[in-house]
């Protein structure tokens, strides 16, 4: 049984003329222990997909089974508890609470679980040791560098021993050195058997993943297994296919390019590519009227 099972799930935002189809009947299953990198141009639905998996948001249509349990229609309180116990979030902008010290930030999920302060401080210290931040326990977030802040945020995501770690562009605000440190951390977490879903624009980072999802217009258009240590094939091909790249393209990485290469031949194992028929037209009409 897969850890994450999403069946024909759609997500619509807004009403009437302003409706956006952010996810278009997506079907996906992720096994325990997979490190999944999600790529795709901006607006293709990556964040929406991760929010659904992380139970921050509910699908408009379709079912989501987490660890065999149907969770997409639970009450907001039950979902909050599942987020607390099953899921660790790492955000692009770190999202540490600015008024709390590093150790208080890291131990906050345990506080919401009702663990006594002394025990949760001990646990938080241990986790901070793991991410190499033990010596900055009592720093305030504004006293940290970006890399340190993201490591603290990862410690917070790990503290409840979650089943899934969801990282939405975690290196988006980091320089290449800090990115590497953070990605090595994810690699270590993955080696210990954790499941990770990571959104990135950087094809280099697919080296850490053993599976890459390519998204376009709310659909998963490619699903590639890739050995750890190697850049994913399709990501590399698309990246180098374009003759001329601008600085922006390089900064945005392969995801931006994906958008400029319509009909890119992404063959996938197991996953069939969606026929782009009527629904696609609807989506385009919708997004055009939005602009």
């Amino acid at each position, binding site marked *: 049984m897969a850890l994450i099972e999403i069946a024909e799930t759609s997500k619509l935002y807004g009403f009437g003329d302003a409706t956006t189809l952010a996810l278009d009947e997506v079907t996906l299953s992720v096994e325990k222990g997979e490190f999944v990198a999600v790529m795709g141009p901006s607006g293709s639905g990556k964040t929406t997909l991760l929010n659904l998996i992380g139970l921050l948001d509910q699908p408009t249509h379709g079912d989501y089974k987490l660890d065999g349990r149907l969770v997409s229609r639970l009450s907001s*309180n039950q979902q909050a*508890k599942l987020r607390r116990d099953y899921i660790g979030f790492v*955000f692009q902008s770190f999202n540490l609470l600015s008024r709390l010290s590093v150790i208080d930030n890291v131990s906050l999920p345990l*506080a919401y679980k009702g663990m006594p302060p002394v025990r949760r401080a001990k646990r938080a210290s241990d986790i901070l040791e793991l991410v190499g931040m033990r010596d900055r326990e009592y720093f305030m977030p504004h006293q940290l560098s970006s890399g340190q802040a993201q490591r603290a945020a990862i410690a917070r995501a790990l503290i409840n021993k979650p089943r899934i770690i969801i990282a939405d562009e975690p290196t988006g605000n980091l320089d290449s050195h800090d990115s590497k440190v953070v990605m090595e951390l994810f690699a270590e977490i993955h080696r210990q058997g954790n499941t990770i879903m990571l959104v990135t624009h950087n094809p280099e980072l697919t080296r850490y993943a053993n599976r890459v999802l390519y998204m376009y217009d709310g659909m998963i258009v490619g699903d590639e297994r890739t050995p750890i240590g190697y850049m994913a094939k399709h990501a590399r091909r698309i990246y180098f296919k374009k003759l001329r790249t601008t600085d922006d393209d390089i900064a945005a990485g392969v995801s931006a390019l994906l958008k400029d290469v319509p009909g890119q031949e992404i063959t996938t194992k197991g996953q069939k590519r969606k026929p782009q028929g009527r629904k696609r037209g609807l989506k385009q009409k919708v997004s055009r009227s939005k602009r």
Partner: protein
Amino acid sequence: MWSGNLRNALSSLRQSRWRTTFTMLGIIIGVVSVVTIVSLGDGLKRQVSGQINQLGKNVLTVRPGTIDGKHKSISNLNLYSYLAPSTLSLQDVASIQNLPSIQAAAPIDFVSASATGDDGQFGDVFVAGTSPGLWDILHERAAYGSLFADDSSTDQQNNIAVIGSDIATKLYSALNPVGNSIKINGQSFTIYGVLPASAGSLLSVTGADLNSSVFIPESAAQNLTNNHSNILQIFAQTKPGANLDSSVKAIQQAVSTSHNGVNDFTVLKQNELLAVSDQLVGTVTSFMSGIAAIALVVGGIGIMNILLVSVSERTREIGIRKAIGATNRQILNQFLVEGLVLTVGGSVIGIGLAMLINLLLRLYSSWRPVVSLPIIILTVGISLAAGVLFSIAPALKAARKNPIDALRGE
């Protein structure tokens, strides 16, 4: 969890120190005014009842106007009767004095509300004509000079006055102004004696204060007012051993006869006088505290306002907390605790300030406010209730935020 919430609330309130201070100010003002007003009222009640008790049980009071039935309601009793002609006359004083069970009777005959002395005019004064019997009834001795004794002396001696201690200090600077003169309605009076400073005034029921009173012999008062007397009350002291109730009846009969059977006056025993004065003070106090309570409510609305602002400013924080597993309940508690800290803090500071004001009033004024535990408990209770009540809406708003919308918000 609760201690965490508390720490959280304190740190977030510290972040916006000024806003916190001004928010608390509403509650502080409310608590200070309620506690101070009620304690002033309680103090006044005690003062008045202390003086009524000092009168002794054997002093009866005759007032113009009537009190309906057994309820002793103040509504019909003309407490500010010197604004309207009194129904009592000097003849009533004489007929009460002549009753066999009565030892002494003394009128309080209002003459004027201003007097002029060496150091200028004194507007806040109560000039009354009375008879020497008053001193015994009030148990007063002269602090300086002496109190006039006999009404049937020469005219020269009739133009004498006994003044309260406030008048002495304000009009003459010197503590002993005996022998100086004081002008009342253009006529000069020689100061004959000064009363000792008193804690307050029996006469406060009529709106006057013994310390700022000037007493002149009744005959002089008659001269000044062209025989238009305005008797606010008559004190009647019964002889030792005389039955109080039959004395009341005797007075009622005597006065009623000379009023052609019209019952346009009231005879009050000491305890009835107490009840009436308590009721008067109570009415004024509760009216004032009602106004002060509005300040408390306004303070509560201020808290709601600030919490609402705080909730929208911290949308992102709420989003993060929810993402890492805070339930709606836990977010709700966080903001409720913040509201409670504001109200509890405001109440504590308010009570501290009220205590300080109390002390200052006791030290530097003639007021004697009394802070009682029940009133503190009541005030704190009300402000806590207001705090919780007005925190609920913002806290609910925070708790119900959708996590992704909140995360997106800044």
